């Protein structure tokens, strides 16, 4: 073979955990679990030829090392190249993250549809170049109100580009809901809670539009922050944001039904009110923004976890409520044993469960 080096494609990035590692493919959006010894091998790729690696690992490991090479090549994670080509393939610069928004996403709760209030919120979100919003209705509303609310956020003079809606079922007609996507191009998803059936509708051709029906009663803040095994987010933006920022809270705000501004709906601390304060001022509050930069590399246990850069964080419910750097409460994965357990029955978590008043939720 005249190819002397093996290198990983720059968007296939190995992440080391305490007991095993991942290769995160940020172009094809998938992950593979690999042993740490393969991780350690990949670190040597740039500075050692294939032959040298085989010699270095010794005759007794030759077959294993060769198998690792074959695995990486066949999975499309790596390719062979010549020594003089190595410098032509720089790594992906994962330390550069930016968005053309001061606030990239906002969760807004309304208990009724008041046009003036909605326009005020939309205009305020414009001042911080908010691009995506999730509107949650805390009470049942009429279809006409839903339609009105969405159309206000959809306006051409509003910079928001993505609207997600969570609404309690009120005998809505499916065709009416589908029609909302035709009239409002910014509308991306509708989640209908308290529905009789559980299903997802995405067979209509308006971009990435989806309607989700769920039998869950309502979208309560205490339900947030769940960690479901094998439901990870593998993509370039998420991975890069995760290097130095919090994957849930970075450039996020929540506005509750009374107008209070918080980091997220599940957190108690408020930083002002949308009716009286300017968002441009509020987002200068360091207590609000400091949580944006808590990365997984700083969170206890998570920093040892192989999934840390493909996993959403939660700072609202943590194992030790007095330590903002403690592990997310609702995560049942243990990177030291590599076992997923039900978080809610873990005896070590009961104090925090009581602290947050989650007992009722846990019993369900």
């Amino acid at each position: 073979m005249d190819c002397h080096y093996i290198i990983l494609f720059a968007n296939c990035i190995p992440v080391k955990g305490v007991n095993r590692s991942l290769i995160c493919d940020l172009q094809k959006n998938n992950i593979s679990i690999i042993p740490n010894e393969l991780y350690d091998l990949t670190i040597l790729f740039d500075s050692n030829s294939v032959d040298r690696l085989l010699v270095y690992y010794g005759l007794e490991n030759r077959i294993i090392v060769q198998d690792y090479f074959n695995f990486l090549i066949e999975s499309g994670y790596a390719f062979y190249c010549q020594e003089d080509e190595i410098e032509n393939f720089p790594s992906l610069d994962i330390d550069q993250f930016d968005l053309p928004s001061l606030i990239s996403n906002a969760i807004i709760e309304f208990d009724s549809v008041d046009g003036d209030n909605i326009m005020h919120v939309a205009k305020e979100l414009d001042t911080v170049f908010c691009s995506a919003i999730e509107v949650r209705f805390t009470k049942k509303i009429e279809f006409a109100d839903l339609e009105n609310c969405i159309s206000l956020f959809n306006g051409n003079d509003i910079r928001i580009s993505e609207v997600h809606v969570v609404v309690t079922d009120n005998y809505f007609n499916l065709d009416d809901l589908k029609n909302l996507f035709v009239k409002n191009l910014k509308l991306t998803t509708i989640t209908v809670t308290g529905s009789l059936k559980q299903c997802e509708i995405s067979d209509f051709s308006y971009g990435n539009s989806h309607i989700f029906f769920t039998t869950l009663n309502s979208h309560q803040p205490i339900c947030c922050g769940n960690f479901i095994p094998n439901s990870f987010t593998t993509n370039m933006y998420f991975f890069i944001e995760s290097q130095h920022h919090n994957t849930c809270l970075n450039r996020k705000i929540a506005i509750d039904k009374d107008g209070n501004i918080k980091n997220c709906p599940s957190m108690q601390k408020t930083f002002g009110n949308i009716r009286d304060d300017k968002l441009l001022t509020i987002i200068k509050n360091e207590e609000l923004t400091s949580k944006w930069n808590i990365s997984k590399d700083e969170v206890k246990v998570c920093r040892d976890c192989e999934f840390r850069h493909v996993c959403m964080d939660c700072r609202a419910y943590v194992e030790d409520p007095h330590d903002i750097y403690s592990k997310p409460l609702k995560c049942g994965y243990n990177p030291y044993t590599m076992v997923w357990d039900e978080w809610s029955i873990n005896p070590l978590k009961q104090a925090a469960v009581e602290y947050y008043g989650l007992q009722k939720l846990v019993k369900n």
Partner: protein
Amino acid sequence: MVLILSDGVDKSVNTVVRYLYLKNAHPIVIQNSDISTIIQLSINEFTIFREQNISSDKISSYWFRRGQLNIENNIIDCYQQSPLINYIRDFGKNEIGSYISYIYYLLEKKKSIGSIFKSEINKLYVLRCAELCGLSTPNTLVATNSDSLLCFGDESLLIKSGSKFFSYTINNLIINSYSSLVKVNSLPESFFPNIFQNYIEKQYEIRSFFLINEFYSMAIFSKNDEKSIDNRKSFLCNRYVPYKLPKIIEQKLFDLMQKLQLNTCSIDIIKSTDGHFVFLEVNPDGIFENVSYFCNYQLEKKIANYLAKKND
């Protein structure tokens, strides 16, 4: 204010515009569908109206992304009854065209990215310049009969169009001018003039976006069993990774950019199986979204920073 000329407002224009707003740079986008009017035009300055007065002295920088400036052609309003109405309309179009052309000239004297005068650069001229700069290029011939192709000595040749990319859809049938491989013996004796090139076996392709004196390059690996002639055809199965061209190639490309007087463009290169970098073509209004996204170069932000920066 920063003036942006674009054929439409897509995601990357929108991203640049948002970064500009965040820098208080006051961007204004004029799209193909916008009709402006001339308020005044002198040798040194102009004012046009499009929702507001846009004066050259207020414009600090200019980005020609694509598209054109459209000025209302109302010459026929005065000659509705004339039997020469079609000629008059054409005359009006030419008149306005000459003014618009001078407005472009005034705009490009500002700090600017891109040039409308370069958007339809001649492919053969570019190949000649590339050779003069020391870049390898494929053997190229514009042929009208199959006999003249025998000089290549190859069974199969690459066939491509000489002018702008063409694509139309009629009854779900897409007709376009993608480059493709043809067997010489399957061609008729004589045909419409076409560019033929020898087919170069490639390791990977390189798309390099030239912007403000830097090359932002990306290697494109095609799936081994589906090596394609034209990367646009097989978007999903490819692998896109950041790439750094060798210094010597960058220097030659830089010379080419100077020769062609381009301050931005997308460049197509092949790394051949025998290890050579073969220059294929430049697209002065080529897209950069993929290069920016897959390599995390954040070119939208770099464009905005450049346009917004004062006294550069």
